[in-house]
């Protein structure tokens, strides 16, 4: 993953993901950060959609957790970085979870493959039985 530093002048928006409505809050925060980062409408839509997918995963598969959304930079580009953390069962086979049929949209329902296509970088850190930490960055 590209080393990215947080923008010290901007806040890290944290959302606890405990129930259904929290996924909507995650979308709103992602939208706010995208706006701050100067994303276009399409870039924003992709980011917010990925945020929604990943937040849902955290809730449904991870048993709840939290998200942290912030603006970042690699020295040249500006972007939005999102982290989704849970202490759930973990993902036993990440490669499999990333795979989905492009035309049918079917997969293991984890939405990871789709989310990956919507962002610039996606990294999954998971330990079966101990939880999952997903970091996604979308550069402008």
């Amino acid at each position, binding site marked *: 993953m590209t*080393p990215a530093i947080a923008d010290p002048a901007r806040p890290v928006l944290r959302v606890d993901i405990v129930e259904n409505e929290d996924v909507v809050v995650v979308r709103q925060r992602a939208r706010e950060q995208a706006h701050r980062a100067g994303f276009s409408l*399409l870039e924003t839509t992709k980011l917010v959609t990925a945020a929604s997918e990943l937040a849902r995963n955290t809730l449904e598969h991870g048993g709840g957790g939290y998200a942290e959304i912030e603006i970042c930079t690699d*020295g*040249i580009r500006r972007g939005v970085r999102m982290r989704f953390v849970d202490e759930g069962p973990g993902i036993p086979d990440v490669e499999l979870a990333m795979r989905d049929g492009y035309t049918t949209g079917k997969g293991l329902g984890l939405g990871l493959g789709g989310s990956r296509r919507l962002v610039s970088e996606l990294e999954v850190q998971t330990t079966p039985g101990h939880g999952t930490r997903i970091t996604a960055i979308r550069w402008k």
Partner: protein
Amino acid sequence: MATTPERLIQVLQSSQVQLLADWIKALRAVHKTRSATISDPELQAQCQEFIALTSAAIASNDLEDTDAEPWRPVKDFLAGVSRSRSRQGFSPSETAMFVMSFKEPLFAMLRRTREGIDDGKLLADVWEASRLLDKLALYTTEIHQAAREEVIRRQGEEMLELSTPVIQLWDGILALPLIGTLDSARTQVVMESLLQQIVATRSPIAILDITGVPTVDTLTAQHLLKTVAATRLMGAECIISGIRPQIAQTIVHLGVSLGDIVTKASLADAFRIALAKLGQSIAKG
């Protein structure tokens, strides 16, 4: 003070005023030939910031690994300076001189503090400092280069938008003549533009004419299919026209399925079909 970092910090902090004066003088000499230059207060602020951030980073005791966390603030600051120089039209060398021209003032000051003491430490300090400043100077050139490439890429995109106009052929029928190779960036810009026009003109039919597209590879075909799929989701329909025999063969060879997308050899045929499709709903009303 036993270590190089400690001695460097000592010099940076105790002789800051003199260092700044000498450094700015050196920079002014470099900028002499430039028409657009940087104001005194701004240059002063930049130099001071660099010294402050660098002192803080040196305090981490690692002069070797400038990719490590303690050096992030310095690099971030230099990236900003570099991008700004790039925007103002400074050359990569002129940009690198921001850091490079700090060498001589720093070395002169190091020499002065070790005046009369011959213990080999001066050589070590100058050497370490030189290596550090070289790395930081090179970093500014990289950023400068990347910033330039970014500008060129953006300008290219803007030109793309101008060169792929969406035409309103008829009330409810748009045409998009695609020309040249459909690489990823171009196709995305084109896709967005077409979809926005469909909404703006409330046109249910869009004709994608690929007469001017010499070859189609898997990626291009996929992009075309994505455009068609997105159009359908919005409630409009795409007709692809201008498929030459070679392209038809390539599409089959690639195993790409056009599904039930209507394809016509000529734009004229596509237009006729489009009218007929609209005609159905008009007659009904």
